Structures are given as C-alpha cells and as structure tokens.
C-alpha cells in the first residue's frame, strides 16, 4: 500500500503550485483575454464568464499535471473555443463595436481632433467589418501580443498561414483607411 502514497501526494503538491501559477497568470492575462473576447463580439458579461471558465480549466489542467508550456497560447485557445461555443454568431459582432460611440478615444482631444478621430475610427470600423473572420481573429490575437506560432496554435492553423493572413489583413486595412 505504501506504493499508493506517492501518486496521491503528487497531485496535491501540484495543485498548490498550480493554484499559485494560475493566480499569477490570471493577473497578467485577464485583461488581454477580456479584450480579445469583447473584440470578438462577446458582451462584457459573457467575456467575464469565458475568462473565468478558461482559468478554471487552466487550474484543473495544471493540477492534473498538464503541460506548462506556452500557457498564454493555451489560455487564449481555451477562451477562443469557449467563445465559439457560447457565441455562435460572434463573427457579426466585432464590427458592431464600430457602431458604438467611439468617444472613449477622444477624451483629451480638442473638438476638431475628436471629430477627425471619430471619422478615422468609423473608417477603420468599416474596413475591419470587411475582413474575414480569420483575418480579424489573427489581428486581434496579434494585438494581444501573441506570436505567430501562438496564433497558429489558438486557431489551429500553420504559422506560415498566420503570417500570410496577418500580412493580407494589415494591407487591406492600410489600403481602406488610406494610411
């Protein structure tokens, strides 16, 4: 029976380190994840739920001795899949963000500058709406600081494909926005 003791002790010690790691990661990654999910088209509440779920899954993953490599990419992938499950119509939504008042960006600007900025954002919003879902997702993940390799893991595509998609998407936006 003494042979049983070691396997039992192992998950417990891992659980505590896992909890600690998950807490640190939560502090670091909660905001980028929320931003990604909201920009994908989830409501704030849905995004919060997805982030909570993702960290719960991470906690279980670490506690059960799961791989600790590239946790950031792993979390984004879990969150991305959760978002897909929850919000099967999320594609329509990132663009919907462009319909909202973009005055959040213009707090410190003069009125003229605020108007210009608003127009610029509206134009960018239109251009973003014209992107394909994978182009938007790649750009969002890139804006969240993920490397092409990580983006590929999240979306289940090759790194070289990510590179092509990002290249195409940025060029489309630059062209549409006359940047």
């Amino acid at each position, binding site marked *: 029976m003494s042979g049983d003791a070691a396997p039992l002790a192992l998950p417990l010690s891992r659980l505590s380190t896992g909890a600690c790691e998950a807490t640190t990661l939560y502090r670091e990654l909660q905001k980028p994840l*929320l*931003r990604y999910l*909201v*920009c994908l088209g989830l*409501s*704030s*509440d849905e995004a919060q739920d997805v982030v909570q779920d993702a960290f719960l899954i991470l906690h279980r993953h670490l506690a059960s001795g799961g791989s600790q490599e590239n946790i950031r990419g792993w979390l984004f992938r879990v969150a991305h899949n959760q978002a897909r499950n929850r919000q099967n119509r999320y594609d329509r939504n*990132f663009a919907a*963000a*462009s319909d*909202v*008042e*973009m005055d*959040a*960006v213009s707090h410190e600007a003069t009125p003229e500058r605020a108007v210009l900025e608003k127009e*610029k*954002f509206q134009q*960018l*919003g239109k251009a*973003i709406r014209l992107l394909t879902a994978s182009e938007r997702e790649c*750009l*969002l993940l*890139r*804006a969240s600081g993920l*490397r*092409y390799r990580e983006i590929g893991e999240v979306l289940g595509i090759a790194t070289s494909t990510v*590179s092509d998609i*990002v*290249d195409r998407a*940025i*060029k489309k*936006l*630059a062209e549409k*926005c006359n*940047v």
Partner: protein
Amino acid sequence: MCDFSGKLIAWLDHELPPEEAAEVERHLADCSECRSGVDAYKRVSCEFDAYCDAAIASNSRRGVPRWAPVVLGAGAAAALVALFLAMPQTRVESPAFHRPQTVAAASPVIVTNVMPASVSPAEKVHRRQAVTPASIRNANAAPVQSQDANVLPDEPMIQIAIPADEMFPPGAVPEGMHFVADLSIAADGSAERLRLRPRLAGFERSTTQP
C-alpha cells in the same frame, strides 16, 4: 511592387529569421517605398490596437443595463432598511445616557429634544412631534413614525427629509421614495452621528424647497 513588401509586416512583428530580418533592414535603407509601407503598417497596427481599446471601453459602457441604477438604488435602500431594522436591538441594549439639557440647548443650530430614557414610547412620539420644526419637519407618515417610537434615541436630534433625486441619478430609486436623515448632535454642536433611513411615501417635496 517591391519584392520585399511581403516581408515587411513579419519583420515589424519580429517574426523573421535573423538572416531575413537583416536582409530586410539593408533593403529598407535603400527603398523609400518600403519605408513608407512600414510606417503605414505601424500606424494601422496602432490604430487597430486603439480601436480594440475603444471597443472594449464602449462595450463596458453598453454593458451597464438601464435598469442597473434602479437595482443598485433599490439594493442600497434595502441595505439601509436592513440597517435600520437591525438598529433597535443594539440601541435599546446600549446604556442610555442623558445629555444635560443646558448643553443641548446651547447648540445654536438645531431644535433639540432631550428625552430621559424612562419616558414611555407614546410620550416620546408626542415630544418628538411637538418639537420638530416645520422648516425641517419630519417627513414621515404617521404609521411609520409610531413604529419608530420605541427606538427613539436619547440624544438631541434633528431630522432632515432628503428627496431621493438629490442623492441618486434620476430613475435610480423607485418613485415616491425619499430619505430621512437623523442627525445626532454632540455636546459641542458638531454632528455626532448620521443615520439615513429610506421612506416610501408621504413626502411632500414642497416642504424642503426654499
């Protein structure tokens, strides 16, 4: 279109192998078209980033439902009611103290009603009603007042009726609700304790208007 144009964004993102990156850098030194391309891609990336921030800020504003203030207001009111209901036990159990009438009377601002602890509830009501001035009149309807009778404090006190819309945004508090602030005054004339109580009806707005 320059041959390098397909590598510029990957170069910006530090995604090229070192040899290719060095090649792009050498090329950029000579090619103004690619340099302006890189500038444009940088700008559009920054704008995309700012757009995401604006979208999330805007979403969180939209995320607050219109009825949230009402719920919050109702929650605050419920908390105050709970607090108020919890108060009698603690107040009754605490040893009553008598403030010398002269001290209370010296207070320049308020009408005082100093009551010995032995006064019966009915008498307290009577006294309290008798001394409440019209200008800061008690906003309570009579039934509520009688419930309060046995928990009246023993220190000088004034009551101020406060319209709910003075404290909460319009619509945050149910129609007809207002608040009564019981202000206890210390011996030196300073405010000693403020108790806020929600009331649902019987408030005449005109009485508090100057």
